[in-house]
């Protein structure tokens, strides 16, 4: 009876879906230099959500330059030969002199690094540890920065976009892509082409060295200040052994503070060629006109015939369970992470279904201007551990697919008085049930329906469509976006059980057990 209802529901769903992913009218064009342009016309609101993404992220970094993809994202807001300075020639001279002083600073820093290596000083970044020569160089550098500041038109791109009615000017870096976004009134599309093509054609990485300090503050704020931040970073590094997913996108502090402008130039030349970039436009414009503008503005940037180096290192199969036991200054928790597949792997939809069925499908109500709130998870883990056995107060699961691999994550918060260790057998029992008996048709159907509704929610606004396209284009193609719902609908019970048996294996477990560190305020 219930089963029939589920199936009937599915049939009704598929019949009444004017907004399926494949019905979003996506137009894809390629410019003469290999840059791609993905467009969706929507004419009800006089706005356009704009983005371009470079297929480069922290996975393209190496030890010693971790964090450079993200640092680079910041540098793209620092202006061009035209934007951001009153005197490009003098500005370039001052940049060159700054680089010279930075060479001296680096020489002194290597002396300090050696002293730290020998234990003569505790922290090479401590101002008290500076040598007189270093202090001299820092003072000289400061003078050059102050002189340059007189020529800088501060954050000029932001100012121009602001005056034009732009909202949400921002950028973000992930393991696999770097994304630059803004929403504009629909009459300002050409301004977007002007400014974005200018920063790809003629960038100047001014204020380079002070921006490293901003990023160190960003790292303190977004990672180190979280009570479990540095433990989470260590756990991730333990989970990924060889893959560049081993380090956080923001990078290690030692690397961030020592990146050079020369390295940034090299990085730009390698990864920011138009043939590694895709632009996305969603909103009130005409696709043919936009294509013509794209060719006029972006088309002037030469392609990089060498192409972009691939990420070569593959994560080896994990030979044994790994476990981290940590004390943190927050409530206890238990996490279990299994490495899985790339977001576009054929197993990905079934892994998503497995996560939905175990962890519940979070359905967000939050839309701009709407009330927030998330319904509590309704997956097997929540029902078993939180509602029935009352040993936990929260339990969730998720599949996180990146370009070169992915993870299946389970997170449980023990109930007051319960230790994370006590929860492990109860959690394993739920996993074992799936391994042995699989999932039910009804569970799977409900997951599919929730996924569809989630898609509707995301495809309601220009920015929602832009974010969804970005997610797919970071790891795959427009076709992956178009096929995604059909792939989800095609998942069978057997698929779900098979991927559970394939990935949720004993030797693949990475376990993080945290307890509260007491006596520290």
């Amino acid at each position, binding site marked *: 009876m219930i089963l029939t209802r589920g199936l009937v529901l599915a049939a009704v769903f598929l019949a009444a879906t004017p907004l399926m992913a494949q019905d979003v009218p996506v137009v894809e064009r390629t410019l003469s230099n290999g840059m791609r342009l993905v467009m969706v016309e929507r004419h*009800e609101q006089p706005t356009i959500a704009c983005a371009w993404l470079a297929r480069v992220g922290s996975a393209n970094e190496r030890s010693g330059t971790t964090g450079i993809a993200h640092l680079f994202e910041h540098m793209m807001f620092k202006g061009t030969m035209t934007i951001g300075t009153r005197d490009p020639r003098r500005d370039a001279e001052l940049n060159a002199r700054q680089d010279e002083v930075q060479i001296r600073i680096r020489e002194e820093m290597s002396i300090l690094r050696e002293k730290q290596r020998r234990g003569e000083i505790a922290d090479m970044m401590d101002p008290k540890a500076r040598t007189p020569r270093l202090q001299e160089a820092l003072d000289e550098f400061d003078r050059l920065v102050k002189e340059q500041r007189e020529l800088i038109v501060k954050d000029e791109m932001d100012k121009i976009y602001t005056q034009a009615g732009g909202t949400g000017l921002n950028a973000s870096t992930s393991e696999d892509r770097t994304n630059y976004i803004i929403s504009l009134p629909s009459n300002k599309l050409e301004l977007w082409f002007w400014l974005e093509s200018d920063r790809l054609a003629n960038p100047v990485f001014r204020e380079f060295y002070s921006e490293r300090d901003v990023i160190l503050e960003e790292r303190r704020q977004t990672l180190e200040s979280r009570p479990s931040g540095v433990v989470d970073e260590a756990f991730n590094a333990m989970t990924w052994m060889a893959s560049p997913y081993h380090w956080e996108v923001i990078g290690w502090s030692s690397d961030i503070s020592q990146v050079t402008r020369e390295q940034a130039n090299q990085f730009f030349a390698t990864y920011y060629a138009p043939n590694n970039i895709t632009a996305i436009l969603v909103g009130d414009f005409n696709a043919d006109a936009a294509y013509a503008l794209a060719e006029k503005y972006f088309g002037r*940037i030469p392609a990089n015939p060498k192409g972009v180096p691939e990420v070569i290192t593959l994560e080896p199969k994990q030979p044994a369970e790994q476990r981290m036991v940590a004390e943190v200054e927050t409530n206890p928790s238990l996490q279990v992470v299994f490495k899985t597949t790339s977001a576009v792997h054929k197993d990905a939809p079934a892994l998503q279904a497995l996560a939905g069925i175990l962890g519940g499908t979070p359905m967000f109500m939050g839309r*701009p201007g709407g009330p927030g709130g998330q319904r509590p998870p309704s997956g097997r883990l929540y029902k078993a551990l939180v509602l029935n056995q009352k040993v936990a107060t929260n339990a969730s699961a998720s599949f996180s697919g990146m370009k070169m691999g992915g993870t299946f994550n389970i997170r449980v918060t023990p109930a007051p008085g319960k230790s994370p260790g006590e929860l492990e057998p109860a959690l394993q029992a739920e996993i074992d049930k799936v391994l042995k008996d699989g999932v039910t048709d009804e569970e799977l159907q409900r997951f599919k329906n929730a996924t569809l509704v989630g898609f509707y929610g995301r495809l309601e606004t220009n920015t929602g469509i832009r974010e969804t396209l970005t997610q797919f284009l970071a790891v795959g193609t427009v076709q992956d976006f178009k096929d995604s719902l059909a792939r989800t609908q095609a998942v069978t019970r057997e698929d779900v059980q098979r991927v559970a048996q394939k990935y949720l294996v004993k030797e693949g477990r990475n376990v993080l057990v945290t307890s509260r560190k007491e006596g520290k305020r």
Partner: protein
Amino acid sequence: MIRRATLTILLGVATAFAQDIPDRPEKLQFAPIKFETPRVKDFKVKLQNGIPAFVAQNGKEGSPLVRVTVSWRGGAYLDPKGKEGLAGLFGSQLTQGGTTKLEAAKLEDRLEALAATLTSSCADTSCNISLQVLDKDLPEGLDLLMQALTQPAFSQERLDLAKRQARQRINRRNDDVTSIANYQMRYLLYGENFFASADDTVASQEAITRDDLVGFHARGLHPANLFVAASGQFDRKAMVDALNRTVGSIKAGPQARVSPVVPTPDFPRSPGIFVTDKDAPQATVRWVFPGIRRTDADWYAGFVANQILGGRGFTSRLMKKIRSDEGLTYGVYSTLEPGTYWRGDVTGSMQTKNRSVAYAMRLALEEIRKLKEQLVSDDELRVNKDGIIEAFPSQWATKQAIANRFADEAREGWPEDWWVSYREKIQAVTVADVQRMAKKLADNDKMVILAVGKASEMEAGDPDHPGALKDMAPLPLKRVPLRDPATLKPVP
């Protein structure tokens, strides 16, 4: 290497100018956009029991989803002393505790079968219940919403779970500087005896019973308290009929009462620099000046002045100085609060490493001083005004945003159609207005500054920019101790 890169870049510029691309973006021409401000009268309907409903139906580009939110005047300001946390528990349990017809697990099962979402919550001065459902399932969705709204069961078992979850939230209170700053600042602004600073404690959570939730519900469910927002895929008349049959049929029960007026604070604030010691890699700094309400004729000028100071990200002065110039923070912001029930505040915030607190805060005070002492340039004013005016349509981008905004503003008692003349009033703001409002709003003698972080490092300052925290402003410096997370009593 670098020289060669510069050469390539110069060649790039040469090519660019070869095709008729203007050399500056200001030379581009843009066709004007006409945007009519949505009017309340086009959306508002009075239901048969007098409840105002704001109904906004999708155009053809929307999805087949429907959202209905019922909100009401009520919330934590009504929590009895000793039962702080009641409104919060009531808010979650309205939809998580089942109904008299469907126990909690069955209600959740029905919602899952419909791929629908039904959530509820209470904040300080409002509560709401929200439904998201596919258009074809609207009748059943509305029935479930009405069951939860009018016949909640408040399952004891679910209430116990919610209390365990609350206990864990309470335990996390002192875990990071942001959370500590949140409660410390509320005590500094409102004292110990006002709802805005009265958080729940372990004891107050324990004192709350299921009967308290039942009573809270019975008192609050009065048509005079309620407001509805509906948006999405539907026929307008059918939606109004459906709302009349459901929310429109709610009658006041015997215990129901019109929610009392939200009290206003009368706590005499002590200006000063307040420091809470917390061993953390980075400190958080907040500052507060008394502001004005959105209905004040000076609001527009105050809003523009705040945008220039710190309300508009990288275009604002604080961000340019403290982040872009000095690299001292990831972000610094200033906000002019609308002041829903009493005068709002102008609040500033940033995070920076402990030793930079004094210097970064000095820079912020310097920017505030400049705004008071020197007229802003016409150009800076124009950029900020144009930004507000040109971005105005994006505030109304979805039908859901329109319906919810109008319902919220009606519930909060703002004048209808306040937004209609908004752009003209922003346009009328002059450089003299900005200076006048900067002087009026940023009164240093009334300033409350709070820094939470490693006190010894914050107080000593940065050797690269000498100056102790106490010398930052002519205000007394005072240490305020952490509070015990369970009792919220200061820990000596």
